[in-house]
């Protein structure tokens, strides 16, 4: 992830209980595939976000294994079923072990 560029989340602030809502995420990351060569002809080492997970009040929404075929600045959109008010927890895991996190709360009516 680029320093100073926070992950972006688009999700509703409120929803009806039982409603299915779309969640969109975007994070800044070069997703270096490990297939490119630098000017000297050496392979640029792989460094990608290899996993994305989202939970809602601790329950799994989605877990995605990402490979070098995912474009830079990964955009991931998916759907949540809002059963009650709660907090979405997003985690992006980097090859180098770093974990980038974000949260979003939804009030269910």
């Amino acid at each position: 992830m680029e320093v100073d560029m926070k992950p972006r989340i688009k999700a509703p602030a409120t929803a009806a209980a039982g409603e299915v809502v779309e969640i969109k995420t975007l994070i800044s990351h070069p997703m270096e595939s490990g297939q490119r060569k630098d000017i000297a002809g050496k392979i640029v080492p792989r460094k990608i976000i290899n996993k994305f997970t989202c939970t809602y009040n601790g329950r799994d929404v989605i877990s995605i294994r990402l490979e070098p075929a995912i474009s830079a600045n990964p955009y991931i959109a998916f759907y949540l079923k809002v059963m009650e008010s709660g907090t979405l927890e997003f985690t992006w895991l980097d090859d180098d072990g770093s974990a980038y996190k974000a949260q979003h709360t939804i009030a269910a009516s």
Partner: protein
Amino acid sequence: MKRRAVCVAIRVAGITLAGCILASATWAAPPGLDRYISGDKKSGYVFATPETRDMMDDDFNNPAFLWVEKGEALWSKAEGTAGKSCASCHGDAKTSMRGVGAAYPKYDATLKKMVDIEQRINVCRVANMKAPAFKWESDELLGITAYVKLQSRGMPVAVKIDGPAAPFFEKGKAFYFERRGLQDIACSHCHVDNAGRMIRAELLSQGQTNGFPTYRLKAQRIVSVQRRFAGCNEEIRAEPYPLGSDEYVNLELYVAWRGNGLPVETPSVRK
């Protein structure tokens, strides 16, 4: 003997390229995009595929906004020995920068030449904030440029080419029509003579700059006009000029003028 074969091969590559342009079906702008057309002028938006236009139509889907947010944060950040931020003098960018992005490049009376918006931002940083200039193509400079130009989004491009800008406009125009590189092509050959036609498997646009800095699908990052000029020159096997050189800034004035009347689309998404 070998040199002659190389010269022939290069000329043949040029002929093949020309052949590939001529042998193509007629392209027409898709309906419903009048907002992006001004007379004969067509924004790059019109030449893009529906999927690329989709990425641009929603500010969340558009990855360029990662840089815009960075620029927005930098706008209010005090840097340099004068202890000022952009906001200290310019206040809320939404009001103070409205229309600014649409009018650059502009003539700078102190430097006695044209400056583009990236250069103007750095002039401000160095002279007024007493902060170091941002490097070309740095995330910071791209971010602030995109953020500033965003405040003119939807307004027509309106660069001035009269008065002190006139001689520089003529230089930019001469550059645009001058052949260069191993492929011996001028900007006009693709973007004037063959806009709307295919070059191999790619659709040629008019090469408008109303959407820059733009998120390029190929580079998977945001890119400035100056960088795009260098890239285009590299692709026709011409030695690129440095970013911010007089040649490229004069060219930027001419190319911006070609798009006068088109809406500012910064930050756009292009291939």
